[in-house]
């Protein structure tokens, strides 16, 4: 039981930390600065497409 835990708990934490790091990265890059615009932008025609 202990070896399983020794793998699973760090694995769970690492995955969680990975997610958290990704979240922090996205905050830092302004992904959450314009929530309304992002929802609308998808409806725009791509000008060079």
């Amino acid at each position: 039981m202990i070896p399983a835990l020794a793998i699973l708990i760090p694995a769970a934490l690492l995955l969680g930390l990975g997610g958290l790091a990704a979240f922090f990265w996205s905050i830092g890059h302004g992904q959450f600065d314009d929530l309304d615009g992002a929802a609308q932008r998808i409806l725009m025609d791509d000008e060079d497409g």
Partner: protein
Amino acid sequence: MASLTRADDARERWECDAEAFVRRDPSGMSRIELAVRGAHCANCMSRIEQGLRALEGVTEARLNLSTGKLAVQWREGRVDAATVIRRVEELGFPARPYDPRALIENEDAEARFLLRCLGVAGFASANVMLLSISIWSGLGGEMGDGTRTLFHWISGLIAIPAALYAGRPFFRSALKSLSAGRANMDVPISLAILLALALSVFSALNHGQRAYFDAAVMLPFLLLIGRYLDFLLRRKARASARDLIAMQAVSARRIDQAGIARPVSASEISPGDRLLMATGERVPVDGVIEDGTEADLSLVTGESAPVCVARDSGLRAGSIITGRPVVLRAASRVEDSFVAELARLVEAGQQQRNRYVKLADRAARIYVPVVHSLAALVFIVWFVGLHAGLASSLERAICLLIITCPCALGLAVPAVQVVATGLLFRRGILVKSGDALERLAGVDLAFFDKTGTLTEGRPVLVGEPDPRALNEAARLARASRHPLARALAAAAGTGVVAGDAREIAGQGVEAIENGKRVVLGRADWVGAMSERKSAGSELWFGREGEAPVCFEFEDRVKHDAPDLMAALARRGVTTELLTGDREAVARRVAQEVGIAAWQAELAPGEKVTVLEHARGEGHRALMVGDGLNDAPALAQAHVSISPGAAVDAAQAQADMVLMGETLLPIAAAMDVARQARRRVLENFGFAAAYNAIAIPFAALGLVTPLIAAVAMASSSLLVTLNALRLKAGEP
């Protein structure tokens, strides 16, 4: 005060000094940030962005729809800031440079701070719950003491830093309120987080069965969701009305010793400076004009029609030059000028309003002492009365604090407000602060400004003038920026301008057509005897050798104003008209819309006095107004609304802004506000009932961590669902 020239004013004012807001980098790129109004959808966004990218030299244009901020970048030399702004305005969106020092940066930082806390709390909650669920399912005996303690320690290693990190918004606010000698809702929240951590560490050290690490991170997680919702609401609100700052960034053209007019920011003007004021510009400081002209003094007097100002007479800041360009000798600095005085009145009003205690804080005032004394009582009873031992007595007291933590309260109000403001947004009302709805729900008296609020705010040609005279007069009218001339030109439609039209300030326009002199202007100038004694205004048109023709204008009442008055009366709200205009005009408009009481010829300060008086009598007054002279009154009122066409400063002061030209949404807003208050009170009732059940269990020591966590989450879910019922009631 809502003159036809407003859009042009803004454009001219900004073109001259937009360069001051451009940031240049060494690689030859220039950037400017613009505040753009009126963009709400994908269509607007793509029109603006693609319209700008089509300009040669523009490399990037990106509009933030949440804040209304447009960032444009271009290669130096190909285009300039003025072209960019003109393009955005041509596309139909008023735009102006954003002062880089303004608040927006802080706002983004605050959003990111809250999100980071939320992210950490979410991460910790998920991982700690993973461990906690194993512990709970192992409590029957399958899990050994050693494993359980190990799990507790792992939980602790995650939860302690996470809770301290994610709890910072609460700790800060609690400290701030404690240092001010009060206790807000964040005090018990902070206490619960810290005590839960402390108790859990103590329990883990003693190989105890229970630890509350899960509660210590779940609590900030759930509450931060509420906080973030609340923040988004406030940001949207501020974005829609941040224009007071823009207004203060007004520039002027100062004539230097070489006689060249150079743009300077208004704050650089010192007494004695000579400023060139073009037609349509707003006077930035109090001063004396060196020549006669005509000016719109609506800000100062409330009078809607422009008046003549003679040479060497004084003009107060905020007046708009409607006649010919003049040179103004500054007599004071910006901070000593009339507009600054208005700003101080506004500030005083805001302080008054800040005394309003939000429903949630009122609940906290009762809640905080009750919960704290109950926890103390539980501790004393167990420790002194029942000799339960220090550790277990303390545990029960802390357990009570955790379980009674105001999750429901913290979420109840923002959830309802988000739903209610979303609902109103779709009906054309922008709510700028959550507690504005609470305040609107209690209103029993409504004051209305006249011009631009109950009326269209601009003169309209009335009657059926002779088409030939109208067409000929319009040739002259098109050459003038006077509001009446513009109304006449608008009535005549597009056409040519008289070639040699010459405007005589304060009198009218003259030209020679087919060898004959034609004039359009004041009755005495044109040479006609005006018989009009009633309210309103008129223009006379004269052709050499013919009798003058009169054109009459009226500021029409908005079509749904009478309906709104009836709707408010049905809701038990008394209405009153407050105007700076003359008695006769006030009476006519009041009768037309069905208001029994009116007060005319009020200066901006007097409107404030009226509102103070109403407050003194115990009324909760709604103020609806659109002019700069209404701004202090809007700030003073219990709650305020301004129409969409209102000047920026009025919109900045108002709690709510109507997005269309109609007034009836005010009645709808009142209904939604009252429903929202009912939901909030229900949520409070629910939270009270939940506590009434939970507290005895906690006091008796019967609450397990599982029950506490489930109860906490489900109570939060319930208040959110209750808030969503508002939407279900939508017709």
